[in-house]
Protein backbone atom coordinates (compact mmCIF):
# COMPACT_ATOMS: atom_id res chain seq x y z
CA UNK A 1 0.00 0.00 0.00
CA UNK A 2 2.77 2.35 1.05
CA UNK A 3 4.62 1.51 -2.14
CA UNK A 4 1.54 2.36 -4.26
CA UNK A 5 1.09 5.73 -2.47
CA UNK A 6 4.76 6.49 -3.00
CA UNK A 7 4.52 5.70 -6.73
CA UNK A 8 1.37 7.85 -7.02
CA UNK A 9 3.08 10.75 -5.22
CA UNK A 10 6.12 10.53 -7.51
CA UNK A 11 3.83 10.42 -10.57
CA UNK A 12 1.88 13.50 -9.36
CA UNK A 13 5.17 15.33 -8.65
CA UNK A 14 6.60 14.57 -12.14
CA UNK A 15 3.36 15.56 -13.92
CA UNK A 16 2.98 18.83 -12.01
CA UNK A 17 6.63 19.67 -12.77
CA UNK A 18 5.97 19.18 -16.49
CA UNK A 19 2.89 21.40 -16.38
CA UNK A 20 4.81 24.14 -14.52
CA UNK A 21 7.70 23.93 -16.99
CA UNK A 22 5.26 24.19 -19.90
CA UNK A 23 3.60 27.28 -18.33
CA UNK A 24 6.99 28.94 -17.84
CA UNK A 25 7.97 28.19 -21.48
CA UNK A 26 4.64 29.53 -22.74
CA UNK A 27 4.96 32.80 -20.84
CA UNK A 28 8.53 33.29 -22.12
CA UNK A 29 7.44 32.76 -25.74
CA UNK A 30 4.46 35.08 -25.15
CA UNK A 31 6.82 37.80 -23.98
CA UNK A 32 8.93 37.30 -27.11
CA UNK A 33 5.81 37.54 -29.30
CA UNK A 34 4.66 40.71 -27.53
CA UNK A 35 8.12 42.26 -27.96
CA UNK A 36 8.17 41.39 -31.69
CA UNK A 37 4.64 42.73 -32.10
CA UNK A 38 5.60 46.01 -30.36
CA UNK A 39 8.65 46.35 -32.63
CA UNK A 40 6.47 45.75 -35.70
CA UNK A 41 3.98 48.41 -34.59
CA UNK A 42 6.84 50.86 -33.88
CA UNK A 43 8.29 50.23 -37.36
CA UNK A 44 4.91 50.76 -39.04
CA UNK A 45 4.40 54.03 -37.12
CA UNK A 46 7.93 55.17 -38.05
CA UNK A 47 7.36 54.31 -41.73
CA UNK A 48 4.11 56.29 -41.76
CA UNK A 49 5.72 59.25 -40.00
CA UNK A 50 4.37 61.92 -42.33
CA UNK A 51 3.14 65.44 -41.73
CA UNK A 52 0.48 67.52 -43.42
CA UNK A 53 0.36 71.26 -44.03
CA UNK A 54 -1.99 73.94 -45.23
CA UNK A 55 -3.56 77.33 -44.62
CA UNK A 56 -6.12 77.63 -41.81
CA UNK A 57 -9.65 78.44 -42.96
CA UNK A 58 -11.43 77.78 -39.61
CA UNK A 59 -10.53 77.23 -35.93
CA UNK A 60 -13.47 76.67 -33.55
CA UNK A 61 -11.41 75.24 -30.68
CA UNK A 62 -12.35 71.62 -31.38
CA UNK A 63 -11.70 71.45 -35.10
CA UNK A 64 -9.35 73.29 -37.45
CA UNK A 65 -9.95 73.26 -41.19
CA UNK A 66 -7.03 73.68 -43.57
CA UNK A 67 -6.66 73.98 -47.33
CA UNK A 68 -3.44 72.59 -48.85
CA UNK A 69 -1.55 73.68 -52.00
CA UNK A 70 -3.81 71.52 -54.19
CA UNK A 71 -6.92 73.20 -52.68
CA UNK A 72 -7.90 70.01 -50.81
CA UNK A 73 -9.65 70.72 -47.49
CA UNK A 74 -8.68 68.65 -44.41
CA UNK A 75 -10.41 68.58 -41.02
CA UNK A 76 -7.99 68.57 -38.08
CA UNK A 77 -9.39 67.09 -34.85
CA UNK A 78 -7.95 68.59 -31.66
CA UNK A 79 -7.62 66.73 -28.34
CA UNK A 80 -7.71 69.03 -25.28
CA UNK A 81 -5.37 66.69 -23.35
CA UNK A 82 -3.03 65.39 -26.04
CA UNK A 83 -2.61 67.94 -28.85
CA UNK A 84 0.33 70.34 -28.44
CA UNK A 85 0.74 73.66 -30.24
CA UNK A 86 3.93 75.52 -31.23
CA UNK A 87 5.06 78.53 -33.23
CA UNK A 88 8.27 78.08 -35.25
CA UNK A 89 10.42 81.17 -35.46
CA UNK A 90 13.73 80.79 -37.38
CA UNK A 91 15.63 78.03 -35.55
CA UNK A 92 13.45 77.69 -32.44
CA UNK A 93 9.89 76.85 -31.44
CA UNK A 94 7.70 78.21 -28.67
CA UNK A 95 4.67 76.50 -27.12
CA UNK A 96 1.40 78.33 -27.74
CA UNK A 97 -2.33 77.72 -27.19
CA UNK A 98 -4.95 76.44 -29.63
CA UNK A 99 -6.57 79.90 -29.66
CA UNK A 100 -3.35 81.43 -31.02
CA UNK A 101 -3.95 79.69 -34.35
CA UNK A 102 -5.80 82.13 -36.59
CA UNK A 103 -7.32 82.10 -40.06
CA UNK A 104 -4.70 82.32 -42.86
CA UNK A 105 -1.95 80.93 -40.61
CA UNK A 106 0.13 78.24 -42.32
CA UNK A 107 0.30 75.15 -40.10
CA UNK A 108 2.04 71.77 -40.07
CA UNK A 109 0.19 68.88 -38.44
CA UNK A 110 1.58 65.56 -37.19
CA UNK A 111 -0.96 62.87 -36.45
CA UNK A 112 -3.05 60.12 -37.95
CA UNK A 113 -4.81 60.70 -41.29
CA UNK A 114 -8.12 58.93 -41.91
CA UNK A 115 -9.68 59.86 -45.24
CA UNK A 116 -9.60 63.70 -45.04
CA UNK A 117 -9.57 63.93 -41.27
CA UNK A 118 -6.38 64.27 -39.20
CA UNK A 119 -6.27 63.46 -35.47
CA UNK A 120 -3.58 65.92 -34.41
CA UNK A 121 -0.70 65.09 -32.09
CA UNK A 122 1.14 68.38 -32.66
CA UNK A 123 0.47 71.55 -34.63
CA UNK A 124 3.16 74.06 -35.67
CA UNK A 125 2.60 77.54 -37.09
CA UNK A 126 5.32 78.08 -39.71
CA UNK A 127 6.29 80.22 -42.72
CA UNK A 128 5.42 78.75 -46.10
CA UNK A 129 7.71 78.97 -49.10
CA UNK A 130 7.36 78.15 -52.79
CA UNK A 131 10.28 76.82 -54.83
CA UNK A 132 10.06 77.33 -58.58
CA UNK A 133 12.09 77.44 -61.75
CA UNK A 134 11.78 78.43 -65.40
CA UNK A 135 13.16 80.54 -68.23
CA UNK A 136 13.43 84.33 -67.85
CA UNK A 137 11.17 85.94 -70.44
CA UNK A 138 11.55 89.59 -69.38
CA UNK A 139 13.94 91.71 -67.33
CA UNK A 140 12.56 95.06 -66.15
CA UNK A 141 15.65 97.07 -65.23
CA UNK A 142 13.60 100.12 -64.15
CA UNK A 143 11.48 98.26 -61.58
CA UNK A 144 14.04 95.58 -60.64
CA UNK A 145 11.75 92.73 -61.55
CA UNK A 146 11.89 89.68 -63.79
CA UNK A 147 9.28 87.46 -65.43
CA UNK A 148 9.76 83.69 -65.42
CA UNK A 149 7.80 81.11 -67.43
CA UNK A 150 7.86 77.62 -65.91
CA UNK A 151 7.39 74.21 -67.59
CA UNK A 152 3.60 74.42 -67.02
CA UNK A 153 3.59 77.75 -68.96
CA UNK A 154 2.73 79.71 -65.78
CA UNK A 155 4.27 83.18 -65.55
CA UNK A 156 5.79 84.42 -62.26
CA UNK A 157 6.76 88.04 -61.70
CA UNK A 158 9.56 88.31 -59.16
CA UNK A 159 10.51 91.60 -57.57
CA UNK A 160 14.17 91.72 -56.62
CA UNK A 161 14.38 93.43 -53.23
CA UNK A 162 17.40 94.64 -51.27
CA UNK A 163 17.12 91.51 -49.10
CA UNK A 164 16.89 89.12 -52.09
CA UNK A 165 19.85 86.76 -52.24
CA UNK A 166 21.06 86.59 -55.86
CA UNK A 167 23.28 83.72 -57.04
CA UNK A 168 24.63 82.60 -60.42
CA UNK A 169 26.10 79.32 -61.65
CA UNK A 170 29.69 79.67 -62.85
CA UNK A 171 29.50 77.78 -66.17
CA UNK A 172 33.19 76.79 -66.00
CA UNK A 173 33.46 75.56 -62.41
CA UNK A 174 29.73 74.82 -61.83
CA UNK A 175 30.11 76.55 -58.47
CA UNK A 176 27.35 78.82 -57.16
CA UNK A 177 28.52 82.42 -56.75
CA UNK A 178 26.98 85.70 -55.60
CA UNK A 179 25.76 88.00 -58.37
CA UNK A 180 23.82 91.23 -59.00
CA UNK A 181 20.68 92.19 -60.89
CA UNK A 182 22.71 93.57 -63.86
CA UNK A 183 23.97 90.04 -64.68
CA UNK A 184 20.45 88.65 -65.21
CA UNK A 185 19.49 88.31 -68.90
CA UNK A 186 16.41 87.25 -70.84
CA UNK A 187 16.80 83.61 -71.89
CA UNK A 188 18.64 82.56 -68.72
CA UNK A 189 17.10 79.89 -66.48
CA UNK A 190 16.18 80.93 -62.94
CA UNK A 191 15.47 78.97 -59.75
CA UNK A 192 13.69 80.91 -57.03
CA UNK A 193 12.31 80.80 -53.49
CA UNK A 194 9.39 83.05 -52.53
CA UNK A 195 7.19 83.37 -49.45
CA UNK A 196 3.60 82.20 -49.91
CA UNK A 197 1.25 85.07 -49.07
CA UNK A 198 -2.51 85.49 -48.77
CA UNK A 199 -2.58 88.77 -50.71
CA UNK A 200 -0.63 87.53 -53.75
CA UNK A 201 -2.14 88.48 -57.10
CA UNK A 202 -1.15 87.37 -60.61
CA UNK A 203 1.76 85.26 -59.30
CA UNK A 204 3.64 88.42 -58.28
CA UNK A 205 6.08 87.82 -55.41
CA UNK A 206 9.03 89.41 -53.67
CA UNK A 207 11.93 87.01 -54.21
CA UNK A 208 13.73 85.59 -51.19
CA UNK A 209 16.39 83.90 -53.30
CA UNK A 210 17.25 83.62 -57.02
CA UNK A 211 19.74 81.28 -58.66
CA UNK A 212 20.57 82.00 -62.32
CA UNK A 213 21.71 79.34 -64.81
CA UNK A 214 23.19 81.51 -67.60
CA UNK A 215 22.20 80.67 -71.18
CA UNK A 216 25.94 80.30 -71.95
CA UNK A 217 25.79 76.97 -70.09
CA UNK A 218 23.41 75.62 -72.75
CA UNK A 219 25.47 76.98 -75.67
CA UNK A 220 28.91 75.64 -74.74
Amino acid at each position, binding site marked *: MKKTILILLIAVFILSGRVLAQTATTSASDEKDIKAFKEKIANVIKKNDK*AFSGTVTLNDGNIIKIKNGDNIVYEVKLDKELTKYFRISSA*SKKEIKADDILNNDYIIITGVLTDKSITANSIFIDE*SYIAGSGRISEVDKDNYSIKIVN*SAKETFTLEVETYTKEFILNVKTLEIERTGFSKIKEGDYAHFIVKRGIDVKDNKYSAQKI*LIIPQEYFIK
Partner: protein
Amino acid sequence: MKKETIIAVVFGIALGGVLGLFLINKNKETQLTKNKVIAPSNAPNKTLLTDSNIQNLEISSPQDGIVVDGNSVKITGKAEVNSLIIIQSPVKDLSFKINKLNFSVDLPLALGENVIKIVVYPSNKNQNPQEKDLKVYYLDSQL
Protein backbone atom coordinates in the same frame (compact mmCIF):
# COMPACT_ATOMS: atom_id res chain seq x y z
CA MET B 1 -0.06 45.95 -149.50
CA LYS B 2 -3.49 44.55 -148.94
CA LYS B 3 -6.14 46.62 -147.14
CA GLU B 4 -6.53 43.94 -144.42
CA THR B 5 -2.78 43.98 -143.67
CA ILE B 6 -2.73 47.79 -143.23
CA ILE B 7 -5.72 47.62 -140.84
CA ALA B 8 -4.02 44.85 -138.81
CA VAL B 9 -0.73 46.83 -138.54
CA VAL B 10 -2.52 50.05 -137.45
CA PHE B 11 -4.65 48.13 -134.93
CA GLY B 12 -1.53 46.41 -133.57
CA ILE B 13 0.37 49.72 -133.12
CA ALA B 14 -2.66 51.33 -131.39
CA LEU B 15 -3.09 48.37 -129.03
CA GLY B 16 0.63 48.33 -128.23
CA GLY B 17 0.54 52.08 -127.45
CA VAL B 18 -2.45 51.73 -125.09
CA LEU B 19 -0.83 48.78 -123.33
CA GLY B 20 2.46 50.70 -123.00
CA LEU B 21 0.73 53.77 -121.44
CA PHE B 22 -1.16 51.52 -119.01
CA LEU B 23 2.06 49.87 -117.88
CA ILE B 24 3.88 53.21 -117.40
CA ASN B 25 1.04 54.57 -115.21
CA LYS B 26 0.90 51.40 -113.15
CA ASN B 27 4.66 51.54 -112.55
CA LYS B 28 4.48 55.18 -111.38
CA GLU B 29 1.71 54.36 -108.87
CA THR B 30 3.70 51.46 -107.49
CA GLN B 31 6.77 53.68 -107.04
CA LEU B 32 4.76 56.41 -105.24
CA THR B 33 3.13 53.94 -102.88
CA LYS B 34 6.50 52.46 -101.97
CA ASN B 35 8.01 55.90 -101.23
CA LYS B 36 5.06 56.99 -99.04
CA VAL B 37 5.35 53.92 -96.84
CA ILE B 38 9.07 54.21 -96.27
CA ALA B 39 9.23 57.86 -95.16
CA PRO B 40 6.81 57.97 -92.21
CA SER B 41 7.47 54.45 -90.94
CA ASN B 42 11.12 55.29 -90.21
CA ALA B 43 10.51 58.60 -88.38
CA PRO B 44 8.53 57.40 -85.33
CA ASN B 45 10.85 54.46 -84.85
CA LYS B 46 13.77 56.85 -84.45
CA THR B 47 11.87 58.99 -81.90
CA LEU B 48 10.84 55.99 -79.84
CA LEU B 49 14.40 54.76 -79.73
CA THR B 50 15.65 58.13 -78.45
CA ASP B 51 12.90 58.44 -75.80
CA SER B 52 13.56 55.00 -74.37
CA ASN B 53 17.23 55.89 -73.90
CA ILE B 54 16.50 58.86 -71.59
CA GLN B 55 16.92 58.18 -67.86
CA ASN B 56 14.12 60.04 -66.13
CA LEU B 57 14.75 61.73 -62.81
CA GLU B 58 13.90 59.36 -59.94
CA ILE B 59 14.10 60.22 -56.24
CA SER B 60 14.38 57.13 -54.03
CA SER B 61 14.65 59.03 -50.74
CA PRO B 62 13.39 60.95 -48.87
CA GLN B 63 9.66 60.39 -49.35
CA ASP B 64 7.51 63.45 -49.98
CA GLY B 65 5.96 64.72 -46.73
CA ILE B 66 8.23 62.73 -44.40
CA VAL B 67 9.09 63.90 -40.88
CA VAL B 68 12.75 63.75 -39.86
CA ASP B 69 14.33 64.50 -36.50
CA GLY B 70 17.76 65.64 -37.75
CA ASN B 71 18.79 68.96 -39.29
CA SER B 72 19.86 67.41 -42.60
CA VAL B 73 18.55 64.86 -45.08
CA LYS B 74 20.25 62.62 -47.63
CA ILE B 75 18.75 62.96 -51.10
CA THR B 76 19.34 59.90 -53.28
CA GLY B 77 18.11 59.17 -56.77
CA LYS B 78 18.82 58.45 -60.41
CA ALA B 79 19.33 60.80 -63.36
CA GLU B 80 20.96 60.78 -66.76
CA VAL B 81 24.75 60.52 -66.73
CA ASN B 82 26.61 63.83 -67.27
CA SER B 83 23.55 65.91 -66.45
CA LEU B 84 23.65 68.99 -64.22
CA ILE B 85 21.57 68.73 -61.05
CA ILE B 86 20.33 71.79 -59.16
CA ILE B 87 18.77 71.30 -55.71
CA GLN B 88 17.19 74.36 -54.13
CA SER B 89 15.61 74.89 -50.72
CA PRO B 90 15.14 78.02 -48.57
CA VAL B 91 18.28 77.00 -46.63
CA LYS B 92 20.76 75.89 -49.31
CA ASP B 93 21.36 75.67 -53.08
CA LEU B 94 23.43 72.80 -54.50
CA SER B 95 24.80 72.28 -58.03
CA PHE B 96 26.75 69.31 -59.33
CA LYS B 97 27.28 67.18 -62.42
CA ILE B 98 26.90 63.41 -62.15
CA ASN B 99 29.23 60.96 -63.89
CA LYS B 100 27.15 57.89 -63.05
CA LEU B 101 23.46 57.01 -62.92
CA ASN B 102 22.99 57.30 -59.13
CA PHE B 103 23.51 60.35 -56.97
CA SER B 104 23.46 61.01 -53.24
CA VAL B 105 23.87 64.34 -51.49
CA ASP B 106 23.26 65.82 -48.02
CA LEU B 107 21.01 68.86 -47.72
CA PRO B 108 20.73 70.93 -44.51
CA LEU B 109 17.20 71.57 -43.22
CA ALA B 110 15.49 74.40 -41.38
CA LEU B 111 13.17 73.72 -38.45
CA GLY B 112 9.65 73.17 -39.81
CA GLU B 113 8.65 72.72 -43.44
CA ASN B 114 11.37 72.49 -46.10
CA VAL B 115 10.29 72.84 -49.75
CA ILE B 116 12.91 71.25 -51.98
CA LYS B 117 13.06 71.55 -55.77
CA ILE B 118 15.28 69.17 -57.72
CA VAL B 119 15.93 70.03 -61.39
CA VAL B 120 18.00 68.01 -63.86
CA TYR B 121 19.48 69.66 -66.96
CA PRO B 122 20.37 66.75 -69.31
CA SER B 123 23.75 66.66 -71.07
CA ASN B 124 21.88 66.86 -74.40
CA LYS B 125 21.03 70.57 -74.24
CA ASN B 126 18.09 70.08 -76.63
CA GLN B 127 16.22 68.00 -74.05
CA ASN B 128 13.91 69.76 -71.60
CA PRO B 129 14.89 69.94 -67.92
CA GLN B 130 13.16 67.46 -65.56
CA GLU B 131 12.00 68.45 -62.08
CA LYS B 132 10.63 67.03 -58.82
CA ASP B 133 9.24 68.79 -55.73
CA LEU B 134 9.52 67.47 -52.18
CA LYS B 135 8.40 68.60 -48.74
CA VAL B 136 10.46 67.41 -45.79
CA TYR B 137 9.47 68.31 -42.23
CA TYR B 138 12.21 68.72 -39.66
CA LEU B 139 10.38 68.47 -36.33
CA ASP B 140 11.40 67.52 -32.83
CA SER B 141 11.39 63.72 -32.43
CA GLN B 142 9.86 63.92 -28.96
CA LEU B 143 6.62 65.43 -30.30
